[in-house]
């Protein structure tokens, strides 16, 4: 028989109807890995890219040199942020299902990443997230009302109705704008960090992408520039196993860990249990300290599991086992931190239930307020004339002309329907309102 080449087409270990199988996952015991000094040479810590930094053991106790030794109060704050993020996500998903917003993306199961990393960084550090790190906004104290108004595209929308839901930004909070084009923020964060170094500041940048979008050229640009200039940046790769319907093997995860790419570029790669709040915090703290000391960038692979659908437009039951999340060997980040606090004697099921109730009521109150600034179906929205603003700093003549054209068109339309609400304040065409 003649030899022929043959493609290897990666396949996940389990499809719908099959038993979940995570035997491919290399998991180190909690506390097993050394914590090197932040000035260590890249070649001396390549093992950290293969194994997995973990702090929380099966007995819910913190163990080993990576334990960040946070006090109970900080841990409770972390738990609160994670829980609020989850309840916010759950509510927004329900609201989307009711047709009150057009789209949503949950971060369920991945809350420890944004929350622990956000807490380990300084307020002046610049964050370049992907669309699944809403916990960063929660950590930095942003009002949920603001986020909800963005999802509603209403009169208080920070994006002025120009972006689909969840594409938040927050200039005062040093959180960059989310792009729908994946991974573009990764090399931008490196450029931001280069500028910080050029200006002689001690601020650093951090960015997040998924393992799926690490296949984009932007990942390579970011890694190359970060390595070449030793830019003060933390490059986070959230390996949640699924990129919509393709499992992590389609981004190259079958052959090497994603963290191993770091040493390939000459920067440390650290693989961490992404559902272990303490481990995520500790590794981030390590990378931030290294960056601030001119040690350059670190690639952190955060191993987690996307517990929900990719987005409200996705149906994961078509490509993976329904109960795969329950079989995920690294558990639920909220449950794990909760159990840790209970083990320390600093938390209880009763307090947890009380907190959950309190936060849920808070989410309800925020939503109630957000809707007073406008709903998707009934408005009010911003004046559509604002769509011509911010294309350039000054409005160019062609846009001035087009804006006047639209203004005149809308005047004619509202004149034709005398009982319609004033122009610019209804999301529904006037004629439809009349038919009601």
């Amino acid at each position: 028989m003649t030899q022929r080449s043959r493609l290897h087409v990666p396949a996940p270990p389990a499809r719908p109807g099959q038993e979940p199988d995570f035997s491919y996952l290399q998991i180190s015991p909690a506390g097993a890995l050394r914590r090197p000094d932040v000035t260590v040479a890249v070649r001396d810590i390549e093992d950290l890219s293969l194994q997995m930094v973990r702090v929380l053991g099966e007995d819910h106790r913190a163990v080993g040199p990576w334990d960040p030794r946070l006090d109970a109060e900080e841990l409770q704050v972390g738990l609160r942020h994670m829980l609020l993020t989850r309840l916010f996500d759950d509510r927004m998903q329900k609201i989307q299902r009711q047709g009150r917003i057009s789209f949503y993306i949950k971060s369920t199961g991945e809350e420890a990443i944004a929350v622990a990393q956000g807490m380990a960084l300084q307020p002046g550090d610049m964050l370049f997230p992907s669309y699944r790190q809403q916990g960063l906004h929660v950590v930095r104290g942003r009002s949920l009302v603001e986020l909800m108004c963005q999802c509603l595209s209403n009169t208080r929308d920070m994006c002025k109705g120009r972006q689909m839901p969840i594409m938040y930004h927050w200039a005062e909070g040093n959180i960059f704008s989310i792009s729908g084009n994946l991974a573009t923020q990764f090399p931008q964060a490196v450029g931001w960090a280069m500028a910080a170094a050029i200006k002689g500041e001690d601020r650093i940048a951090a960015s997040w992408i998924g393992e799926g979008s690490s296949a984009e050229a932007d990942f390579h640009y970011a890694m190359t520039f970060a390595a070449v200039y030793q830019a003060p940046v933390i490059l986070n790769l959230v390996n949640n196993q699924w990129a919509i319907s393709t499992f992590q093997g389609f981004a190259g995860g079958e052959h090497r860990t994603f963290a191993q790419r770091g040493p390939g570029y000459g920067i440390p790669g650290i693989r961490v249990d992404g559902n272990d709040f303490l481990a995520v915090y500790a590794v981030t703290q390590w990378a931030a300290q290294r960056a601030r000391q001119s040690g350059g960038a670190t690639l952190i692979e955060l191993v987690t599991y996307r517990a929900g659908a990719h987005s409200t437009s996705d149906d994961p039951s078509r490509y993976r086992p329904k109960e795969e999340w329950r079989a995920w060997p690294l558990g639920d980040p909220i449950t794990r931190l909760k159990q840790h606090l209970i083990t320390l004697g600093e938390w209880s099921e009763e307090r947890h239930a009380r907190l959950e109730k309190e936060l849920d009521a808070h989410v309800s109150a925020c939503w109630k307020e957000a809707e007073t600034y406008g709903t998707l179906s009934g408005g009010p929205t911003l004046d559509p004339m604002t769509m011509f603003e911010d294309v350039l700093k000054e409005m160019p003549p062609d846009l001035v002309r087009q804006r006047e054209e639209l203004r005149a068109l809308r005047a004619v339309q509202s004149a034709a329907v005398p009982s319609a609400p004033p122009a610019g304040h209804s999301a529904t065409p006037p004629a439809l309102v009349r038919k009601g």
Partner: protein
Amino acid sequence: MARMNMVQALNSAMDVMLARDPRVVVLGEDVGYFGGVFRVTDGLQRKYGEHRVLDTPIAEGGIIAAAIGMGVNGLKPVAEIQFADYIYPGFDQVVSELARLRYRTAGDFFAPVTIRTPCGGGIRGGQTHSQSPEAIFTHVSGIKVVMPSNPYDAKGLLISSIEGEDPVVFFEPKRLYNGPFDGDPHKPAVPWSTHPRGEVPEGHYTVPIGRAEVVRPGKDLTILTYGTMVHVAEAAVRLAGVDAEIVDVRTMAPLDVDTICSSVNGTGRCVVVHEATGFAGYGAELVATVQEQCFWNLEAPVRRVTGWDTPYPHAFEWDYFPGPARVAAALKEVMEAA
């Protein structure tokens, strides 16, 4: 005043801005120690240091992305893409990020990045060192697109680009770097020192973005053009013996509709000339604008003279290039039309 060619004028613009504004940084492939493959950044790293004039990896997407991040962090990056033909790996960062950042954040974030890039043919560059992709960028809302035709404008427009807070794609017709090339490769090269626009102030001045300029007044017809073709048009006017008014568009976006239309309304005839391929090229926008605004004053159909709708062929570049003979034929045709 000093005599400068376009390379020196562009170098002087960056020199002036690096000295005036500590936020200005220059980055790109070979721009630092070496001073650029066309020498446009020559001496700048020596003068301002390697933190302000940076050599970069060969990664246009990375260069533009890093420039965006620097811009967000308060710097004013001037990024060089070595040839316009190489800009495509950075296209997503220009279109989806640089051009959209101000809009998608309702003005809360923006990146004042100037992307300089040599364009155009006539240097035996074949299809990967000769392109004029301006129309690919003028189709994108949120960026300004500029192409100077002489050293004076080059410096003034580049300073305006760097000082502004909007992203600019700044095309440099590389065939004009050393002289006002008029389209005849067989004639001895003419240096900028013989041209009035080779007189360039040494210090700071600006040429406004968004303004076209009438570089030759005339009564018979209007030629709308930019870059190298301004000088080709001048040669064609001499060849055809017509009294044409030549408008150097200079800024493709935003477009100076008023200057263009007042010229065409005055002459009643119009020829549009550019080096890039014609189909869906920038000339189509100019013709459409003239048709919409000047139709009742037109005495003849508007003609386009452009590069053929082929890639730029290495061995046949002077057959590809829309030289004075082709432009002159179009001028006569438009003059003879009823």
